[in-house]
C-alpha cells in the first residue's frame, strides 16, 4: 500500500516582495518592461524528505517561521513545490485557516452546505451528515443564525465538526486545537483518536510540544526550512525543547557524527540517532543465549542486548533504556534502568550495559531494538538509536498480534 503522504526532496522558494515591487500595470509600464527587477528569493523549505505511514500521527514542531505551515499547505495542495514532489493518497481534510470559507452573512446551515461541498463532499453527502455535524458542534439552537453572530468558540466548533465529518484519509491540522473550551478540546482529541484507529493519517502543526508528545506517534522538527529531526515524538520533542532552552549556550554543535555499523546500516544524527551526544552509545550487540551475536531468534528464546557507552565528561545517573518495536512502529516492550533515585552511579569514561530478556515470547516477524541513554530526569536524550538494530523472530512473515506465549490447546469432550 502506498503511504498516504510522501514528501521527496521538497524545496519551496518564495519571492521576497520588497516594497518597490510593481503591483500595478501602470508602474510596470512606467518602469519599462525591459528592466527586470533584481530577483530576490528566500527558501522557506529546503530538501525536505519524509513519509508517514497510514494511521500514524505526525507532529510538526519548530519555531515561528520555520516553514511548518508552508509545509502543511503544500501537502494540502496549496501552491506548488519549487523542487521535489509530494505524493498524497486519499481525501485530504484540512483545518488550516479556521473559519476560512465561512461567510459571516450566511447562516450556519448555509455555511455547512457550502463548505461541505467545498471540502469535497457531494451535496447529498452533506445532507446525510448534516445532523452529525451540528450535533458534534453543539449548535442546534443557532444553526439558522448568521455566522457573524457566533462566538469564536462556536465558529471553531463548527469548523472542526465539519472537517472531521468529511471522512478524510489525511487530516491536516494547523494550530487550532488551542481554541475552544476544555470540554470541547477533549472531545476533539477523542475524535482524533477515533480517526487514528480508523487508519486516518494526521499531520498536526503545534507549538504545544506536550500535546505533540502526547498525541503524535512521530514528530518532525523543522528548523529554518530543513528537517532538523524526524523520529519518535517524545524523543524529538525533548530534543527540541532542550535545544530551545539552550539556544544561547548550545552544548552540542550538531556536526554530523555519522558512523557505519557492522550490519551495514549507517547511524545518522537526527535521522536514526537523536540526542545531545554528551554521552554516546556504540557497539550495540544482540546476543542469543549461546552468547553469539545474532539478528535472528526463535520465539521464546532469550535475548541479551549489550551496548557500550563512552562519556567524555562525568554524567550524573543516566538512564538506559531499551525498546522493542514492531516494524510498523508499534511498541511491544519498553524498559529502562531503575529511576535514578535508586542510585545509579555517576558515569564517566567507557563501559558496558547489558540487558537480559529471559525469554522473548514475540510473534513471528520483524522488529527493531531501540536503545537510548537519557538525562536523569528524562529531560532529554543523550543518545538514542531508532530503528537501527533489526531483530527477526521466527521464520516466515509478520503474523497478526504481538505476543506468542508458551501455549498448548486442550480438548475435553463431555459424555452423556
Amino acid at each position, binding site marked *: 500500500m502506498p503511504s498516504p503522504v510522501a514528501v521527496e526532496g521538497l524545496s519551496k522558494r*518564495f519571492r521576497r516582495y520588497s516594497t518597490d515591487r510593481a503591483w500595478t500595470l501602470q508602474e510596470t509600464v512606467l518602469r519599462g518592461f525591459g528592466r527586470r527587477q533584481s530577483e530576490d528569493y528566500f527558501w522557506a523549505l529546503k530538501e525536505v524528505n519524509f513519509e508517514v505511514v497510514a494511521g500514524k500521527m505526525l507532529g510538526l514542531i519548530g519555531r515561528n517561521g520555520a516553514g511548518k505551515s508552508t509545509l502543511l499547505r503544500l501537502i494540502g495542495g496549496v*501552491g506548488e513545490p519549487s523542487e521535489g514532489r509530494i505524493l498524497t493518497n486519499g481525501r485530504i481534510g484540512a483545518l488550516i*485557516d479556521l473559519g476560512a470559507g465561512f461567510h459571516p*452573512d450566511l447562516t450556519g446551515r*448555509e455555511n455547512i452546505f457550502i463548505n461541505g461541498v*467545498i471540502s469535497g463532499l457531494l451535496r447529498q453527502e452533506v445532507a446525510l451528515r448534516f445532523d452529525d455535524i451540528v450535533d458534534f458542534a453543539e449548535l442546534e439552537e443557532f444553526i439558522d443564525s448568521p455566522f457573524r453572530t457566533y462566538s469564536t468558540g462556536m465558529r471553531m466548533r463548527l469548523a472542526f465538526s465539519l472537517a472531521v465529518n468529511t471522512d478524510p484519509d489525511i487530516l491536516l491540522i494547523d494550530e487550532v486545537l488551542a481554541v475552544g473550551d476544555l470540554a470541547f478540546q477533549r472531545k476533539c482529541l477523542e475524535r482524533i483518536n477515533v480517526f487514528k484507529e480508523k487508519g486516518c493519517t494526521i499531520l498536526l502543526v503545534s507549538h504545544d510540544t506536550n500535546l505533540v508528545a502526547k498525541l503524535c506517534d512521530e514528530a518532525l522538527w523543522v528548523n529554518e526550512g530543513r528537517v532538523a529531526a524526524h523520529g519518535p515524538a517524545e524523543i524529538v520533542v525533548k530534543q527540541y525543547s532542550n535545544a530551545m532552552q539552550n539556544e544561547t549556550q548550545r552544548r552540542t554543535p550538531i556536526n554530523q557524527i555519522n558512523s557505519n555499523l557492522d550490519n551495514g546500516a549507517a547511524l545518522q544524527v537526527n535521522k536514526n540517532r537523536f540526542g545531545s551526544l554528551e554521552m554516546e552509545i556504540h557497539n550495540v550487540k544482540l546476543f542469543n543465549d549461546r552468547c553469539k551475536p545474532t539478528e535472528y531468534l526463535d520465539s521464546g528464546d532469550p535475548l541479551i542486548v549489550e551496548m557500550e557507552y563512552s562519556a567524555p565528561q562525568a554524567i550524573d545517573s543516566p538512564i538506559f533504556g531499551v525498546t522493542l518495536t514492531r516494524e510498523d512502529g508499534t511498541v511491544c516492550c519498553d524498559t529502562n534502568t531503575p529511576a535514578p533515585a535508586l542510585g545509579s552511579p555517576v558515569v564517566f569514561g567507557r563501559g558496558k550495559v547489558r540487558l537480559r530478556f529471559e525469554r522473548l515470547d514475540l510473534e513471528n516477524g520483524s522488529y527493531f531494538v531501540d536503545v537510548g541513554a537519557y538525562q536523569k530526569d528524562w529531560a532529554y536524550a543523550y543518545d538514542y538509536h531508532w530503528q537501527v538494530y533489526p531483530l527477526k523472530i521466527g521464520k516466515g512473515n509478520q503474523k497478526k498480534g504481538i505476543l506468542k506465549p508458551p501455549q498448548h490447546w486442550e480438548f475435553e469432550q463431555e459424555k452423556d
Partner: protein
Amino acid sequence: MPQSWNLIYLRDLLRELIGRDIKLRYKRSLLGIVWSLLNPLMQLLVLSLIFRIVLPLDIPNYNTFLFTGLLVWTWFQTSLFAATGAIVDNRDLILRPGFPAAILPVVTVATNFIHFLLALPILLVFLLISGIPWSDAMLALPFLFTVQFLFTLSLVFFIAPLHVRFRDTQYLLGIILLLGFYLSPIFYEASVIPQQYQLLYRLNPMVTLIEAYRSILMQGKYPGILNLLLLSLVSIALLWIGYAVFRRARSQFAEEL
C-alpha cells in the same frame, strides 16, 4: 484531491458557489432582486430620453431595441468586472487544499447569467407592449446564451489571473469596457457605421451577438448562423488558451494573495 472528483461533484460545487453569490447579493438588501434590474432600467431611461427626444434616432420600437442591447451588454460587462474579483475576493477558497480554482470564473459568468435571466421577463413585457409577435426563432436563444457564455468565460479566464498580478487591471478594464459600449450597437444600429469600416467594426464579437439577439427577439428571424459559428469556434479556441494561462497562473495564486 477529493475522490468524488467528477461531474456530479463539480455540478454541486457550482450550484453551491452560485447560490452563495446570489444569496449574498440579496441577503441584507431591502430591494433584493430589484437591484440587478435597476441599473439597466435607469440606463434605458437616460438613453431613451436622449435618443428619442434630444437626438432622435429613427429606429422603430426604440425602447425594446435599446433594452435588448442593454441587457446583453450588462451580462457581458458585469461578468468581466466581477472577473477581477473572482480570485482576489476568494482567497479563502484558493487556499483550500485541492480546491479547483478554475471553477471560479465559471461561477462569475454563471451568476451574472442568472441576473440576466431574471431580467429577461421585463424584456418580454417590452416585446408584448411593442406588439412584436412571438416566434419559433426564440428556440435559438439557448444557443445564443451558450455562445455568449463561452465567449465571456474565455475572457474571464484571462482577466482573473491578470488582476491577481496587477491590481489596477480593473481600471484598465473600465476604460476598455466604456469604449466597448460605444463600439457595440447598443443604442444605435450597426448599419450606420460607414461601409469602409464595417469589416473592422464587426471584429467586435458583441456586434454579432447583439444583432443575433435582436434578429430573434424583434424580427422573429433566425440569425445568420455563419458568424455565430465562427464566434463559437473563436470562443472555444480562446477558452482553451485562457484555461491554459489560468492553469499556469494557478500555482502562483497562493503566493500573490
